[in-house]
């Protein structure tokens, strides 16, 4: 396992440093926000609920992200994709960046072939890094101005701001709902479930249905744990529905109206 230069002991030391850095930053901001929350009179229960519901919520998507590491591991080993998906990365970007670097080096096999040349491996690590760091340069410069602008508008017309904030969230959600209903998949590869079809529709309908059920249940029973677990439970149960449809009705599961 440690014999390959892409996954040797040094690479594991790098990912360890990345994990420590990311967790230290998160703990720092969490502590500051927690203290401020207490000063503002937010109850400890609410603050704890924010931690537990967010942690539980993150389980299924995190496993999904870990699985995407497998996609890139054939070409890059496990550690570089792991580093990239722990910081800044998202699978769409990392795959595109890796392919772009390979093509720039004159390799046309894509990410399905193992990289054996350390120089090309190093080039890919540079391309992945340089292509993704612009937000980290911009944020220290413009974030305070953006936040001040939003804060000024909010203080002048709070009702309009509330409507616009809700609309922004709804627009974001609509983009994903729209993709589940009519988004296209990867035309080059016949992958079940990447285009809009039975599985994406089942995932949407089931998660909406389960969430409405838990919301109604919470209104009736008024239990904190239902509120905290409603979203992660809805997601996991909807994924179970997808697995069941895919396992027991494979012909129906394969139906996609957008390829």
């Amino acid at each position: 396992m440690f014999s390959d230069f892409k996954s040797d002991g040094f690479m594991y030391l790098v990912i360890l440093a990345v994990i420590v850095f990311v967790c230290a930053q998160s703990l720092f901001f969490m502590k500051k926000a927690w203290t401020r929350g207490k000063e503002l009179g937010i109850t400890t229960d609410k603050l704890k609920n924010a931690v537990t519901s967010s942690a539980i919520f993150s389980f299924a998507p995190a496993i999904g992200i870990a699985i995407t590491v497998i996609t890139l591991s054939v070409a890059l080993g496990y550690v570089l994709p792991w580093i990239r998906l722990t910081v800044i990365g998202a699978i769409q970007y990392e795959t595109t960046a890796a392919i772009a670097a390979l093509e720039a080096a004159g390799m046309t096999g894509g990410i399905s072939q193992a990289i054996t040349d350390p120089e090309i491996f190093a080039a890919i690590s540079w391309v992945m890094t340089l292509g993704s760091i612009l937000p980290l340069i911009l944020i220290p410069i413009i974030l305070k101005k953006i936040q001040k602008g939003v804060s000024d508008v909010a203080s002048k017309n709070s009702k309009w701001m509330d409507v616009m904030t809700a609309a922004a969230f709804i627009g974001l959600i609509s983009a994903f709902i729209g993709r589940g209903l009519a988004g296209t998949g990867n035309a080059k590869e016949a992958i079940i479930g990447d285009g809009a079809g039975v599985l994406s529709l089942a995932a949407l309908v089931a998660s909406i249905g389960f969430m409405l059920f838990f919301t109604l249940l919470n209104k009736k029973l008024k239990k904190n744990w239902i509120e905290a677990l409603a979203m992660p439970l809805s997601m996991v149960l909807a994924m179970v529905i997808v697995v069941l449809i895919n396992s027991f009705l494979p012909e129906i599961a394969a139906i996609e109206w957008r390829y």
Partner: protein
Amino acid sequence: MNKNYMDKIHSWGRIWCIASLAFFICIPVAICLHLNVWPDPAIVGKGVASIAFFFVTGIVEVVAYSPMLGAGGTYLSFVSGNIMNLKMPCALNAMENAKVKANTEEGEVITTIAIAASTITTTIIIAVFVLIFAFNPKFSEIMSSDTFAPAFQQVTYTIFGSLAATYFVKHWKISFFPIAAVTLLLFFVDPGIGVLIPIGVVLSMLGAHVMYKLKKV
């Protein structure tokens, strides 16, 4: 909002951002030093040039998402990534549960805590699973098998389906237009989710603004 706290968040955030930038650039440098190779700058330049459109999405993401993520949430999210598929829905869910609004100091506190908790959990889960995959290839075969892979392919839809149930029920009057417009657009052209999100947000805000002016919301 308390200027003092917000000013401090920006000061800390800037320090962490610059430290992150330096740290992330050190990673390829360390790989080069360790492997004792330095790639041809022309190859790196060509690779970066061919993904230059990510610079545009990077700018759009900072401008569009930071008002929703809050200051602390933005500083955290842009370091740890996976914003749209994880950090943003996590923040929205936490604000709904805590019954606080975005762009208030309570919202700022809750989103920061939620995104920090999500980041730590995600980092640990990814680490555990990647180690299992790396040292037990059979497990990675099972997880990426035809049985389970489609479920993880739909995980984004289960996130946004659950969120939709909360938001659309509450704001149904301003929800119809963006869903219909985005879906209709996708039947003609699919620009990819990176472009589709800003389009959805702008259309939704325009529709909501018209409804507000007509006093329908």
